[in-house]
């Protein structure tokens, strides 16, 4: 078992003819993901990726024609909020938005709309989903992970790769890796994913990778303490980040006393989470379980 994606996932790629969309569609196809459609307004009727994938003008038409049940979004930030709304309007049940840089007020509106529908949004500004050996939706390199019993949920992108890679080197495999994204407003949070891992029979241990800013990790700690029976290993990036400085993406700001890495680590430890001091230590803690 895995969470979010499996062999029944039928993927539509929004922005499939763009540079990044095209590159990663090829990567996903190669990994075995079942890409059934692409969407680029104005290019409906074309076929891409060696004639394997039909392109549509609208998500609605793509869904009606191909039965797509999952969408991944690579369109530029300027159009990405509209792309999420289009997918939600077309009732695509799972939407993964890779795009970085969506204005936050716009994203608050989009998130409110999406939450009122029976639709799950992952991201934006996230690396997506990887269920090793089965399917990947997004940009996580497929080669750095093998299948196993570790569930990973992370606000970070490359730091997640670092952890996946270290686990693989230690011989540990992953059930599903979920990049929820580093933006201040996102569709799916730690608690949502932790609950799914708790219910997933394949997952036996969970890795949570957080970073400074916001209070998602604190809420995750509360959830872990109250509801999780499976062991959780954590890491929080930014223990040395100076307060008030913007560190790369909007999620990583220490806001007025809350959002500090040290507070998050304390909260997680209180909830019984073993928190690593450096990323490499995560794999050691998992291996030593």
């Amino acid at each position, binding site marked *: 078992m895995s969470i979010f994606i499996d062999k029944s996932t039928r993927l539509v790629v929004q922005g499939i003819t763009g540079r*990044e969309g095209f590159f*990663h569609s090829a990567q996903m196809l190669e990994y075995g993901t079942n890409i059934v459609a692409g969407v680029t307004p104005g290019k409906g009727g074309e076929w891409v990726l060696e004639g394997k994938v039909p392109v549509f003008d609208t998500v609605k038409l793509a869904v009606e024609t191909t039965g797509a049940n999952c969408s991944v979004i690579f369109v530029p*930030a*300027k159009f990405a909020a509209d792309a999420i709304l289009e997918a939600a309007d077309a009732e695509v049940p799972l939407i993964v938005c890779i795009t*970085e840089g*969506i*204005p*936050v*007020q*716009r994203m*608050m*509106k989009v*998130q*409110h*709309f999406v939450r009122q529908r029976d639709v799950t949004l992952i991201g934006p500004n996230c*690396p997506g989903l990887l269920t090793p050996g089965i399917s990947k939706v997004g*940009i*996580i*390199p497929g080669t*750095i992970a093998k299948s196993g019993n570790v569930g990973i949920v*992370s*606000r*970070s*992108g*490359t*730091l*997640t*790769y*670092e952890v996946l*890679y*270290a686990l693989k080197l230690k011989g540990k495999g992953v059930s599903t890796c979920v990049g929820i994204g*580093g933006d*201040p*407003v996102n569709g799916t949070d730690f608690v949502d994913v932790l609950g799914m891992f708790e219910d997933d029979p394949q997952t036996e241990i969970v890795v949570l*990778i957080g*970073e*400074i*800013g*916001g*209070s998602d990790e604190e809420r995750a700690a509360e959830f872990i303490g109250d509801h999780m029976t499976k062991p959780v290993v954590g890491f929080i*990036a*930014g*223990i*040395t*980040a*100076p307060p008030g*400085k*913007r*560190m*790369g*993406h*909007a999620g*990583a700001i220490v*806001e*007025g*006393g809350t959002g500090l890495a040290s507070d998050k680590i304390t909260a997680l430890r209180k909830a019984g989470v073993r928190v690593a*001091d*450096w*990323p*490499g230590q995560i794999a050691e803690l998992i291996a030593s379980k």
Partner: protein
Amino acid sequence: MKLHEYQSKALFAEHGVPIPRGAVASSASEAIVVAQDLGIRVVVKAQVLVGGRGKAGGVRLADTPKEAGELAARILAMKIKNLPVRKVLVDEAVEPITEIYLGVTNDRSANRPVLIASAEGGVDIEDVAHTDPEKIVRISIHPLLGLQEFQARYLASAIELPRDYWRDFIRISRGLFEAYVDSDATLAEINPLVITKNDRLMALDGKVVLDDNALFLHPDLAEMRDIDEEVPAERDARKYGLSYVKLQGTIGCMVNGAGLAMASMDVIKLMGGEPANFLDIGGGASAEKVTAGLRIILTDPNVKVVLINVFGGITLADEVARGILPAIADEKPKVPLVVRLVGTNEEEGQRLLAKAKMITVSTLEEAAQLSVDLAKKGNVE
């Protein structure tokens, strides 16, 4: 992106928020002209994008235009928290009877805007939040519906504002919220919002932080950026779309991804070193961007060693290598570079680095340890 006080207040005024009469001046003579035009007692205020200017003597009252000119000259010669003062705002002096705090910002945990008010204005609102949290009132705003009149009224009632001022307070709250929405701000605050001697509500100071991701929607606001206020290296980084923050240590860092960049800095510190900066080249960086990033790090005189940590995904390792090599060829750095380069197209990247005889390692921990060692050695020499 932060706006100056005078820019923030002008934005508020466009949305119907009363502000004192005044104008910005870049020299003593300009300040004299403004003070003469106003014709009354004025306040001369340093325009810098850091807090604490009051304590530093950057806000002063002047009874005459001549005095305003003298004070402006003195303030324009100041540095506040290392930032030179290049402009002063000369405003009519207003005597406040009451000082209120009023602000709107994004509530991350609710994914909604939140309007915040306190009867304890004029001071650092975060201090109030720590010492008297019950004195701060918050109203959560529906992200699609926006601020409603009754919500502003709740705030007025909750901070026990005398009723005679409710109508103005509601109007100002709506104006502030509109300014926040129309400018895609992440913070818009009036502190203090004062009741003046002649019974008016007025925004004496203002602060706006804009969402950098939304600046493309607001070219007029983007132009307000005060590039004089930026560290030159940060300005260059922005030009190339790099995320760079200057710090005080000796180990320059270049990493892809914010989380990995922070984690790299954390490991450096854990190993006993001090990072000289945060630098995230982002996802899918081109060789040019990498070159620019490395150049920025190498211009920092504090840097004793450079750590490059790239985990290729959307970013291609060979492209990164192709960016590192020209920077080294041009800049001929006197400090050592430690490169950790894995992921997509790793082999080709490693081949290019090996050809240039670069120091490469395979894990982040190794890279950090080696960098710390080299930095210490550098200090000893």
